Structure formats: C-alpha cells, structure tokens
C-alpha cells in the first residue's frame, strides 16, 4: 500500500516532477566558478596600526634623502636674475614707458652689469623671463598653423591664424598667427672683462620641434610686413627649422610668468666676474604691465634653481615621521576603545530608551576585557 502511495499527489505534483526529470538533461544549475561565486582569492588589506606606522616611516625614510638630494642639487645651481624693464628705460620716459618702447627712434640699447656670485660651470643658460604675459591665453595658443610650419605645401593653411593670416588679399604670412607675430625681440650681448662672450643659439629648441614640427623647406614670407609690427623679424633666407628663437617661442608657456631659453654660454664664469650685458630693449611689455628679466643659470640633474621640491620632500618626509610617531603614541597610550557602541549611527538617539541595555553590555564587556570568566559562560551560546 505504501508503494502505491508513492505517486499520490495533489494537483501540483505533475509540474514539478516534469521539470525535475528534465533537469537531469538540462539543469539550470549555475556552474561553479570562483568568479561567479565571488570567491576569487584576494588580499583584504586594512589599515592596521602596523601598516600605517610602517607606511609613514618608509615614506619618511625615502622622502627625506630625496628632499636633501633635491635641495642640494638646487642649491648647487648658480642663478643670476636681473630685471631690466625698469632700468632700461631712460629717466625722461619713466612715466611714459609706452611711448619710449613704441617709438622706433629712441635708443633701445641698455647696459647692465652682473656680478657672478659663485663659479658657474658651462654651459651657462641664458633665459629671458616675462611676467604677466599670457602665452596660455586660448586665443593666443590657437593662433598658429602647425601644418604651415611643417611643410611648404601647406603654406596657405592659415585659417586658424587670424588676424595675422594673410598680407593684403592673398599673400599668406609664414609663419602665421599671433604667436609668431609677437616673437620676443630683445637681444643680449655679453662680455666679461671686455672680452665678448660667445652666445650659442644652437640646440636651444626641442629636437622634435626642429626636426618634425618646423619644416626645413619653409622660409619666412610676408612676415612682419604689415602695418602693425608685433615683435622680432625673421631672416627670410633661413628655414624655420633653423630659427631656434622662433621655435622656442612657439612652445607656449603654461603660466603667465615664464622663462624661455635665449642661448648658452659655453665658457665657465668665475666667481665675482663682472658681466657686462648690452640689452636691446625692444619688446613691449609696458602696455600690459609686464616685467622682463634676464636670467643666467647653470643646471643640475634636477634642472634649474628651485628649492620647492627639496623643501617639500623634506617637509612631507618629516610630517610622515611625525605622524608615525604620533600614531605609535596613540596606539600605545590609547588602545582601541572596544566597548563604545553608541557612535554607530543607528544607535544614536536611542541611548535613553536603551540605557539599561547599554549598562548591561558594558558589564559584559568589562567581563570580557578583564577576563572575568565567571560571567562569560552565559555568552558562549
């Protein structure tokens, strides 16, 4: 009778038995893989005191030497900065610098003397520094034609260069655009003890620019020939790829205060040498209240003189060590407060109602922390 009963069922049974028999063939059971079961092997780091302290100490230990190295490198660099925009204006033009600079008749030559504070090993780099000059202005940055600079065939590709695109109706300006148009045109001549120092202008621009961005068959054309002359003129017989001043200038600076490489002095300068600089002060920075400086600088592996990175490394390294010590202190003096559940957000505000339970759980905690075994068996369940 029991055997007969095995098939007895209510109305619903048939459906389930159907599906279970078919499941043998085509089961919907998900296949096991560590991926789908979310059981991939993993490390589960948390910021344990050990990790935190170790990290800070390690960072500190790495940073401080780097900081010293950078600082020394920066300190080792000798740099002479001389602002000349004020000094190079004759006294009678002090209150009308603009008139002075815009007047092509005035004498723009200016003499400056610089004392070399420390020995400067060659190469000594010559920079001009402009302040408050927005070479990163969008209108300015976009106002060039890379195609035109690259190849002679694209000489008429000047659509992005307005208003310095074409001369007259149909004569494209090469190089076109505001950047080229406003090319820096101060010049410097150096001499030490009445002996002229040779300024090398070779290889002051990026190699990739010279070789790939400025064509060797592209010659200046119609440049600075209009009514309004911006900056320097270019020798129309020298291809653009060799006009390194232009190439340097065309790499727009990121910030309104910037330096650009003017040239290199390939001889060492001794300490206390007096350098005489003859400056042709042509470039108009007066209309927008800019500044001009001449910079002579050596370099180290870290580049020019800038203490910031070294100091920053030292500061952060020191901070890390300080933090490491503070954490050691914190962890030792104040072990993790095990028993305060009231800061869990869902417990806030309920303290009054459940204060009894709090008291209760504190008792339990005390028992556990201080190992009062007597109270513990109650919890073992």
């Amino acid at each position: 009778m029991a055997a007969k009963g095995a098939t007895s069922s209510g109305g619903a049974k048939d459906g389930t038995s159907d599906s279970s028999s078919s499941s043998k063939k085509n089961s919907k059971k998900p296949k096991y893989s560590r991926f789908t079961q979310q059981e991939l092997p993993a490390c589960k780091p948390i910021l344990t005191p050990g990790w935190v302290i170790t990290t800070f100490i390690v960072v500190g230990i790495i940073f401080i030497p780097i900081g010293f190295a950078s600082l020394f490198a920066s300190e080792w660099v000798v740099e002479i900065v001389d602002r000349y925009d004020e000094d190079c204006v004759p006294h009678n033009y002090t209150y009308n610098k603009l008139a002075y600079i815009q007047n092509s008749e005035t004498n723009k030559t200016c003499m400056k003397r610089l004392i070399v504070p420390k020995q400067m090993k060659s190469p000594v780099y010559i920079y001009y520094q402009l302040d408050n000059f927005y070479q990163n202005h969008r209108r300015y940055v976009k106002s060039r034609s890379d195609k035109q600079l690259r190849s002679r065939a694209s000489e008429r590709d000047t659509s992005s260069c307005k208003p310095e695109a074409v001369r007259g109706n149909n004569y494209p300006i090469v190089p076109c655009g505001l950047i080229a148009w406003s090319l820096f045109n101060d010049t410097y001549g150096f001499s030490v003890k009445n002996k002229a120092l040779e300024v090398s202008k070779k290889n002051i621009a990026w190699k990739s620019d010279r070789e790939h961005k400025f064509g060797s068959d592209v010659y200046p054309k119609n440049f600075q020939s209009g009514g309004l002359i911006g900056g320097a003129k270019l020798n129309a017989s020298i291809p653009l790829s060799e006009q390194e001043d232009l190439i340097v200038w065309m790499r727009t600076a990121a910030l309104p205060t910037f330096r650009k490489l003017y040239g290199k002095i390939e001889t060492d300068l001794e300490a206390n040498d007096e350098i005489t600089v003859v400056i042709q002060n042509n470039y108009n920075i007066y209309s927008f209240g800019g500044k001009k400086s001449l910079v002579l600088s050596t370099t180290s592996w870290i580049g020019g003189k800038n203490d910031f990175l070294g100091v920053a490394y030292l500061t952060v390294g020191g901070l890390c060590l300080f933090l490491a010590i503070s954490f050691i202190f914190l962890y030792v003096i104040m072990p993790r407060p095990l028993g305060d559940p009231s800061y869990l957000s869902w417990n806030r505000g309920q303290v009054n109602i459940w204060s009894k339970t709090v008291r209760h759980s504190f008792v339990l905690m005390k028992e556990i922390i201080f190992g009062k075994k007597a109270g513990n068996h109650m919890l073992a369940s």
Partner: protein
Amino acid sequence: MAGGRRRKHHFGRIHDSSRGKASERGEQSLIGSPGFSRIVYSNHPECIEASAINYGSNYVSTTKYTLATFFPKSLFEQFRRVANLYFLICAILSFTPLSPYTALSSVLPLVVVIGVTMGKEVLEDWRRKKQDIEMNNRKVQVHHGDGIFDNAKWMDLKVGDIVKVQKDEFFPADLILLSSSYEEAICYVETMNLDGETNLKLKQALDATSNFHEDLSFQNFKAVIKCEDPNANLYTFVGGLQLEERQYPLTPQQLLLRDSKLRNTDFIYGVVIFTGHDTKVMQNSTAPPSKRSKIEKRMDKIVYFLFFVLVVMSFIGSIFFGISTREDLENGRMTRWYLRPDDTTIYYDPKRAPVAAILHFLTALMLYSYLIPISLYVSIEIVKVLQTVFINHDLHMYYEEADKPAHARTSNLNEELGQVDTIFSDKTGTLTCNSMEFIKCSVAGTAYGRGVTEVERALSGSKGLPLVQEVKDEEGQVEDSSEERTSIKGYNFVDERVTNGNWVNEPHADVIQKFLRLLAICHTAIPDVDEETGRISYEAESPDEAAFVIAARELGFEFYERTQTSISLHEFDPISGTKVERSYELLNILEFSSSRKRMSVIVRNKDGKLLLLCKGADSVIFERLAKNGSEFEEKTKEHINEYADAGLRTLVLAYRELDEEEYKEFNRELTEAKNSVSADREEMIEEVGEKIERDLILLGATAVEDKLQNGVPECIDKLAQAGIKIWVLTGDKMETAINIGFACSLLRQGMRQIVISSETPEIKALEKVGDNAAVATEFKAKVLHQISGGLELLATSSENSEALALIIDGKSLACALEDDVKDMFLQLALGCASVICCRSSPKQKALVTRLVKIRTGSTTLAIGDGANDVGMLQEADIGIGISGVEGMQAVMSSDIAIAQFRYLERLLLVHGHWCYRRISSMICYFFYKNIAFGFTLFFFEAYASFSGQTVYNDWYLSLYNVFFTSLPVIALGVFDQDVSSRLCLKFPLLYQEGVQNVLFSWSRILGWAFNGVLSATLIFFFCIRAMEHQAFRKGGEVVGLEILGTTMYTCVVWVVNCQMALSISYFTYIQHLLIWGGAIFWYLFLLAYGAMDPNISTTAYKVFIEACAPAPLYWLLTLFVLFSSLIPYITYAAIQLRFFPMYHQMIQWIRTDGQSDDPEYCHMVRQRSLRTTTVGYTARIEATSKRFQEKPEGH
C-alpha cells in the same frame, strides 16, 4: 490514438459551478454592437468574407524595439537623461569655435558611452527576441481541409483555423473549445500562467459541437463565430456560434486562453478566435512599473549639485574673463597687444566684453564638463548587470529540487536590496510550502497521530536552552520512525494504533470507520489511475483536500473512481478483514464556500441508506450538531485547540443519516434553486443546504499541517537580527496566521498581542440587527478604539521594553486604512515588533505596502508567490517573487525571483549589502575622481585669465573617464567586498549600514567631494610650484604648456588610481590588473600617442619620450604629489578605522585580528547594537535567558 483511451467520466455536475454558465441572456444581444464586432469564419478557407477580414497573425513580439524603431527610440531613451543630454549639447557645441577642445574628442566619448548602453539594450532585446522566436515556432496541429491535420507553426495560425491540442500542450491562441477526447466534450485547463492558480479548471464545449471526435469529422465543418473584440478581461467572454443556420451562445466556459495548458485530457479541437496580440493574455501584459533605487535618485541630486558647481565655476570664470577682456583695450590702446584686441572676433572682443563673457560662459560649461562623469551612468549599468550575473549564479540560492536558480529580472534594484527596512511577506507558498500534510486526527474523543510539527519543534525550542537536550531526543525519535516508511506527499501520520488496519481494535472502531469513509467520500477530488502500475493519484482543488483523500487511502479507504453519479472505494472491511469494493451513489454535492465554511455530500450506500457527510470549520460544525451527536464535543474541542496551538489547520467531520422523505423534499428544493435564474440563486442554494446540514453527529477532527518551507524560521531570525521588520500579509484566517506567526517565531510567548478583529461578538451581534450604515460607523469606532488602546499599550511598553505584536484582520484593516485612521494605525504598527494582517485582499496588501512606503519613506520589500501578491510586489520598492508552485504570475511581476523564502537571507544580507556598498562607494569615488580632475582644470584657468584654454591635450581630457580611471571603479563596483559572505551572515547587524544609509549619506558624499577638491589643489599647486619657470632638466629646457599638462595629468592618474587602491578592501588580481594597468596604460598611451604624426598628436608629440621621461624632476614630482595627496586620506582613514570604526570595519578588525574564531568576542560585536531584536527564535532564547541574567546584573 484518440478514441482508444476515451474515458467515461460523468461528473460535470460536481463542477457545476456558477461562473461559466451564468451567462445572462442580455449579454448575447450585445453581439454586433461596437466592442462586440468580431466575426470569425471557421473553416471557410475559400470564403470571400473570411479573406476580407484581416485579423493579424499569431506572431507575438515582446521586444522593445524593431529594426526600424531601434535608433530613434533608444536614442530618445538615452537622451532623456539630463547628463546625457548635457553631453550631447556639449558635443554639438564643440563644432563651433566656442569649444575649448576639438569636436572629435568630445564626440567620441559620448559615442562610446551611448554605444555601450545601446549595445546593452540590443543584447537584452535580442534575448527577448529569441524567446519570441522559440514561442512563435512552436508546433501545433492545424486543420488543412479534408479532415487532415498537419503541424504548423504557432505564428502561422490564423483566426478561424481549427487546431488540435494534445495533452500537456499550451494553447497557441485563444480558442473556442469544440470538442475533446471526452464524450461530454469537457477538458481540464491549468491556468497557472494567467492567474497563478494551480487547480484545474473545467471547460466544456457546446453540445452542438461536442460530437466531433475525429479528425475527419472536420471535413465539412463550417461555423461562424461572432464575439466581442479583443480585451483584457480574463473572466468574461461574450459570443455566439452559428452552425448550420442555428445560433448558439458562447460563454467563458468554451474559451481556452493562450498560455494555459491542457491537462488530464488527451486532446481537444478548437477554433482560433484571437491571435497574437489580440489574445487576452497579451492584452493583459502591461509593462511592469519601472522602479529606480533610492541611491540612484540621490545620485541624480548629486549630478544636479555638480551642475550647480559647474555653473558657478563657469560664472566666476566668465566674470573674470569679461573683465580681463575689457581691459585689453584701454582708451583705445591695446594692453595685451599680443592678443590683437583691435582686430578680433566676437569671442574676445573688448568692446563687447559682456557678449564675450556670455559666450565664454558656454565655453566654460563645456570645459568643466569633466566635473560630471560622462561614464557614470554607463559604468553603473555595466556594474549592475554584472552584479545581477552574480545573483543569478549564486549556488547558495539555487534550489536543487526544482532546478531553479535565483533570477534577477531587473538590474535596477541591486543596491536597494541592501537597504530594506520592512519586508511584507505573503504566507502561503512563501513562508509555507503550500503542501498540506495530514498529521493528526481526533476521532471519537481520542487523539491520534504522533508526528511532530515544525511549530511544536519551534515552540519546544523556545522554552530555552535547558530543554535543548530533551528536544533533540524527541526529534531523534521522530526521525527514526520516519525513516522506516517511505515518505508520501501530503501524509505524515504516525500512529500504530490506526495504521495498517489496527484501528479495528480501537474502542470506537465504528466511529473510526465512518470517519475514514467520510474522508474518502466527502471531497471533489478526481482520481487518476496510472494504468501501468495501478497507482492512484488525485487531482484536487486544494492541497488540503488532496491530503484528506491520501490519508483515507493510506488508512485503508482507497478512493479510486468517480463518475457523475457514484464514488467507488476500496474499503477495508473489519468483519471479513479484507478489501472490498464499495460504491456509493452520489446524490448531491453542497460545495465549499468561504461563507459556508463547510462542504457536504449526500450519498446512498449499498444498503440504501441516505448519508449526509459533512466537513467544515469547527465554529460552523459545532453549532449544527445534534443533541445526541455531541458526545465527544468537549474532548474534540480540546484537541482542536491543541492542534491550532501547534499551527495546524483543523476541520471537523460530522455526518447524519437522512430519511427518504426529508431527502426528497430537499432535493426538490435544491433543484428548484439551481434552476432559478434570479440573481440570488447562490443564496437560495445556500439556504437549502442550511436546512439539511443540521442535527449532525460528530465524528472527529482532522489536523493538517501547512508545512513551513525549509529554513524559514532561521531566515526570519537572521532578518530580524539584521533589524529588518517583517510583516506577514496573508489571506488566511486569523488562527492560521497566528499559528504560522508562532512557527516562524514572529510571535512568541510573553509577547503582548494586540488583536484587532472584526469577529468580536459585539460586532457580530450588531451585524445581525442593524442596518449597514450604522454597522459601518459602529465598526469603525470599534476599530479606532482598539487602535488607540494599542497605542496606549505601546506607550507603556516602550518603558518596560516589552515586545508587542499586532494582529489585524482584513475587515478591520479596510477600516484602518481609511485616510483619517491610517496614520494612527501606522504608528501602532511601526511600534510593534511584528505585524500580521490576515484575511487581507490583494488590494489591501498593496495598500498596506504603499502606506508604509510613502509614510515612512523607508525601503520596502514584498515577497510573494501568488497572483494575489502581484499588487503588493509592484507597489513595494522591491518585489521578490517566489518561483514556487503557484505559477508564474508573481514571478512575472517581480523584480527578482527566488525559489525559496530562505534565500532571502542571502539575497539581502550578502548580495544586498555588497551591492549597496559597491554602488555607493563607486558613485562617491566617481565624483571624487571627476572633481579632482575638474578642479585642476579650473585652477589652471585662473592662471590663464579664464580664457578657456585647457592645460591638457584634448585626448587626455576625453579619455580620462573612458580609459584611465573608469575600469578600476567598475572593478570596485563589481568585486569589492568589505567582509566575506560568511561574516555578512554571521553579523547580520551589518545590514543596518544600508538601512541607515551610512555609506551614502550626504556627509560621506561631501567628504569625498572635499577629498577631490583637496587632491586637485595639492596636485595643481605642487605641480606649478615645482615646475614654475626654471629649467626642469639638465639640458636647461623650460616647462611648456604641454609638459605641465602631461605632468599634472600623470599625477592625477596616479593619485586617483592609488586613492582607489586605498579604498578597496578586496584585492583580487582583477583589481591589481585594472588599477596598476590604468596607470601603466596611461604611459603606454602617452608613448603611442606621442609617436604618432604631429598632425594627430599635436602638443603631445614626443612629449613623454623627449621631454618628461628623461627628466628626473618629472618622476620625483609624480612620486611626491602622489604621496602627499594621499597622506591626508591615509591619516584620516587610519584614525577613523582605529578609533571610530564603522560596523563593517569592526568586523574587518575581527577578521584580521583572528578573533573570528573567538566566539565570545564575536558575540560581543554582535551585541553592539543597542536595539534588541524582538522577533526570531534567538530573541526567544534571549528572552528566557534574560531572566537568568537579571540576577547577577543587580550588583
């Protein structure tokens, strides 16, 4: 094959229900009027009118798009999102000179993002398409003329075709039943897919067509059917069939609906009347309401906030730009002459500075668009789809027995699963298996049956720890004895006094005999004899009925045949000691209804005696007992109470002998009542029944266990510990609901029960006397009174921390849900530890859900398995369907389908928690990285007189969100685990992080935003200070725009990726690959991009190889910026983690400290909540053990 197995069944009468046949004459007259204009020419292939009407094919398409509509429709969907629309506008604007970057670099990311999303749509739609194709290509036999039936595809069916459907096949379209394998042209239909009911429904063809039993008989069959137009109403149908010049009315009784299944019938013939999208089931399919998670809603707010920041930034920029532009011409003199302000365009014109500023504003809006992560939405979609894959593939949620894995039907709500505050659960089929087991009975005042129910087990467990040993012993015994016998579904009766025919030796053997016989006769089940083995199975309307018949069979009264007029049993004859066949003439069936609460049959036994056999609810039967029939009443009542306590469903059995006269009178009245066509026909039948069902003689009572699903108490306990409130909304009666409440530990002893019931004697008395309006007001006052009483109790109980339970029935609930009462009701319900609503209608379920959802604003989850839960599932924030026995209706309207209630535990506590955590940290992180990036752009603007020049190359900009930083975030969203699934389940309280929304609170979001600004500030100022204007390498070269940009970008990529690494708590090789890969990919990109022709790479040409890489400063700076930008976060995190850990961090501590094996410590962490759990069996145990603990606490 058709004719051979035709069985002679004549029991149309038992199913003679009112539903189908009560078609009023009036309806027929509607045919032909608007709405009832369909004309179907059946089997008229050459008829002109038939070919003139084009009703559309049976092709069904459920796809969202077609090839033609895909692009416009899905693009429209995409750009409905504000963020996407914004990016589209940016992309369009980028073709104008306003654009700070090239058009391509802003169009491409948008195309990628939109493309990926649309790809996902295509994929999803393709799946639907495949389903459609499968469905449309199913085969069915169709009449092709001359009595030949051939296979045809479903989609090729046309209106008017005659089809032949075999047993267990689905109907391909809506059909009119013509005939079946049965003589009476009846068939059984399972409508599980339509309404979720598992019981079989009987359909019967018209007499006029019932004799077409052969394929050949359709050779010359011609009919015209006129009927209603397609509509969505499953239970009505009006039509007429014209056959050989005669008109026959058609009713729902002849209508076979698509997606229902032919059962217990070898085959049927039918005429197709509605095809494809005209079918009732397709008309019924509405798009489920689309639900969005709370996190996503909040995310939108963040996006708006960022828009605001963006506008403010742009505005500030525009003002400064306007000022500086105006100053370019001073009294007609150029100041910044190198910009040629005298000969300029509108964008930089000093004379029209305000216009320039306004145009610049647009530029700035585009420039700072990096504040808003373009890839956010698409990343979240990808992450959610993958999370869904994990849910679907979780082996722990796969139900072996039914071969059903979990199935997330929508991926929108994954993280919502981690925030559920209240669960609304259906009872039958959800908490219980919907399988009834006959487990106990009380006959003649003696209780039989030693089986232990789940409830008893749970109850004995609740008595506290000291009893555990005892319970175990008891369980052990049960298991021993149950192992001996083969388990039979629906039967779990163990008592050697009765089984194996031993009842003969019991004191009241005659009563037992009558008792068992009654069980075998008084029902509406249909036996199904397996011809090969001779085994009998039963098709019954409800599982408890099946349980009775099975019990009777197991105890020796095997019901094996039912005809229209007789019921035949194999009876154990105590006198001869053998089995004899006995047949009872079936005279009448008085059916069960919820108002009658009983059913009776009247039979004539072989001695010619007339018997009325009756089973029903105790309340109904006891008041109908004869004076001499209540011999065992006291004892039986006692037993019934015991059974009810044990969570069993009880029915009382009684019988009565009728004399011929009385029966004749009754039968006449009954026939009269049945034949009447008036509206109160039902009532008349009831009245007649009432007269005869009296003076009964009590036999005993049965107890059937409504079995809890596996693991339900444990699951509820875990959910309760997680702080989730569980409400049970059931259609069952109060007693059963309370029983189940006890079984699931939602109720326990010592809990104060607030019962709001409409069944109180006062109300009943009122109902008898008063008019309806008076009763209603009186009733409402009563409910109000009860609720306010409950509130008072609540106020006192919160002082002595006593747990309350609210039990309310449907009628009172209707009152409590009225506008003026519902707030009070809600207040009361929220204050109670558990809430049980019984006798509630589907609509009430939905209303309760809505009330809680809207008034409390907390996340609600509804879980159910039946068609009656659909409203609730759709109303709740998350609807979970149990893909159990009750059909697919609930599943189809749910958001996630699981096979068993107990999987809810894992779904919420593990997947929900993880998904919540992942999505929320992912979004926070997304904003962090974009703010960090966007602000560097902004800071740079300040140094470029806000002209709109970007510091980065165009392609750096556009690939930032797409390549260098997105993949690690996606990995975070997919894989991150704060704690393992094992620990999630071990510390259920962890779930509260989601409910309280700790991880996505505004403070946390703003914290991340602040971190982003901080990172940006540090990166930018460190970079520009370090690279200021001096030479940056030995060759004396100075930093240009492109070098500063590249360096800064390198720093951003590193900082952002390392910040990610720091906030990840689960490092698999995938994370390593993506995080470090992102940074390495940046360098590779730089190399590759820099090596391209200068026309393409523009400012990035060789910038890395030539300028950056050889400069030590570049590397030192990167290292420095990386660490110094992360130090604030590390410090904060270390302190927070150590001294103010969040709950998941405490668990992480436990894990790393190796304390997870230390039960005492774990217990303590679990105890960290101040909110004590009040339901679940743990709470029970604690309630008992508390009494022990209170003593030592005194000091």
